[in-house]
């Protein structure tokens, strides 16, 4: 069975986001889409060509999990600075310790949820037996 691209799951005080992907790039992009949907749910699933906002970022980390969390935190910063929500990410480079990405998104007037940060608490990028990459990240709300 194909796992959901992303799924928002319960946490007593915060928000737990699960995401998966056939590749690491897809996992990272689904995480961005999931975080975007927490910040401002999309009224419909926009196609990449409909997203006018583009932001580039480069992140380095000691391993793939820390890289993912740091990537989300950097995207969160850009989101809040520019009042934008990102729905996709394209990758020029993605290794276990380095990424260069382009975020695609939309401008927003306000956010529905105030995400303080993506945390490392339960985060662990793993590969399931079907070969999908998976991770769960808790966001402090």
């Amino acid at each position, binding site marked *: 069975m194909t796992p959901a691209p992303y799924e*928002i*799951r*319960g*946490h*007593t*005080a*915060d*928000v*737990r986001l699960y995401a998966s992907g056939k590749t690491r790039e897809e996992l990272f992009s689904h995480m961005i889409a999931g975080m975007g949907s927490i*910040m401002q749910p999309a009224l419909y699933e926009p196609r990449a060509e409909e997203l006018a906002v583009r932001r580039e970022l480069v992140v380095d980390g*000691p391993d793939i999990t*820390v890289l993912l969390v*740091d990537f989300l*935190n950097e995207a969160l*910063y850009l989101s*809040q*600075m520019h*009042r934008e929500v990102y729905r996709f990410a394209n990758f020029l480079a993605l290794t276990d310790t380095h990424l260069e990405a382009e975020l695609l998104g939309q401008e*927003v*007037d*306000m*956010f*529905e*949820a*105030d995400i*303080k*940060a993506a*945390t*490392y*608490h*339960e*985060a662990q990028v793993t590969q399931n037996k079907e070969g999908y990459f998976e991770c769960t990240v*808790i966001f*402090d*709300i």
Partner: protein
Amino acid sequence: MGHPVQGTPTKQNLVKIHDYLWEVPKSFRQDMKVPARIYASARMLDGICNDRSLWQLVNLTTLPGVYKYAFVMPDVHEGYGSPVGGIVAPREDEGVISPGLCGYDINCGVRLLRTGIAYDKIKSNISDFVTALFREVPSGVGRGGWLKLSHKELDEVLCRGAQWMVEHGYGDEQDIVYCESGGMLSGADPAVVSDHAKKRGRDQLGTIGAGNHFVEIQRIDEIFDQDAAFALGFTHGDATILIHCGSRGLGHQVATDYIRLMLHAMPKYGIQLVDRELACAPFHSPEGGQYWRAMASAANFAWANRQLIMYEVRKAWISVFGESLAAPGLVYDVAHNIVKKETYDNVKLLVHRKGATRAFPPGHPEIPGDYSRTCGQPVFIPGSMGTASFVLVGVPRTMEEAFGSSCHGAGRVMSRTKAKEIVRGQVLKEELEAQGIAVRAGSLAGLAEEAPIAYKDVESVVDVVHRAGIAKKVVRLRPVGVMKG
């Protein structure tokens, strides 16, 4: 809600110290350096053992240099590193400081104002006052404030906190007297606060944001301790105003930056932890020292923020009641996410309070003179929007067994997603208004997330700390008006 994981204590692992205090012995897990303690009634234990709270508590006991024990207050719930309601105190000389443990909302806290007027006399104006609050206090995610600061001025705020606000006309000298630490931690250094953090916080002073932050108007509906109530200036039936907010985006980014920095630094110091979110470094290390100075800066930003919000609240008050009623006065301002340097048993400690409140007893030199001579430091325990809040005061026993601390709120029991599934914001608003509580909220979904059903019964939480003898109930406050983002 997260399911308990391996290494989580169950009820069978708990040793009863007395009716309201339980201990997980050091022998429970090999990596524990000290025991873990839980302030709770027997009835609360099932709920506490139901998620990852106790696993997270036990993880606190593994920190290098941890002193005596780690513990949680009865409002404990699962967090993302420390449980919310957690307190741990590593030694200053050989212990660590942990940005992940302190959390992202550095110096989130509450301040309570007394109006000195009976609620019944202003009852008919409460709805207008809540509307005025909604106008004067910017709220919601992404909405900036009106105070525009230069780079230099922002750096001054990071150094001087609430004192900067008072020096610039947004309050008076008495406001500083009634803030924990005088509304300013010394040792702050804007040079170790990143540009990212400064940019995130630059336009957010005087704003309340969203989530569980609010301004609430209440009436004192029960007095438990007449002498302490008198010392705090409370009269039965009077209106009070409670402000709950923190360091906004600036504090969130400081935490993000330093957790990342310490994750990279930990191998250098040979520190290994079960949970990376508790990332830490020795206090006497370059990284530890830098975080202390950055944390103090963010804490000062939070005190400045609550001071400016109070200025806006006073402005809203005057716009409704004119100059005929005196502007509300500050009872006290307390932090509930912070690291403080405090001394217990003649040992200098770094007391990390994550969702817990300092609660010093009478006679303590760090609290205002009039409170020190009479009742002790006030502690505010906000309930949920539809229930009650409480004012407590510190008592000597908390210095002996709880690092001078008490609880901080009701404590959540239900996830935000679940609350939104079963509560409709509009229906909740109507229900609260039917109870006589005027509500102005920027987001109905946000209102539903904070529904009273998502919280523990605040009375039972407060009763535990009262009966355990680590704080004393003074008054109960019933909400009559709420504004939130």
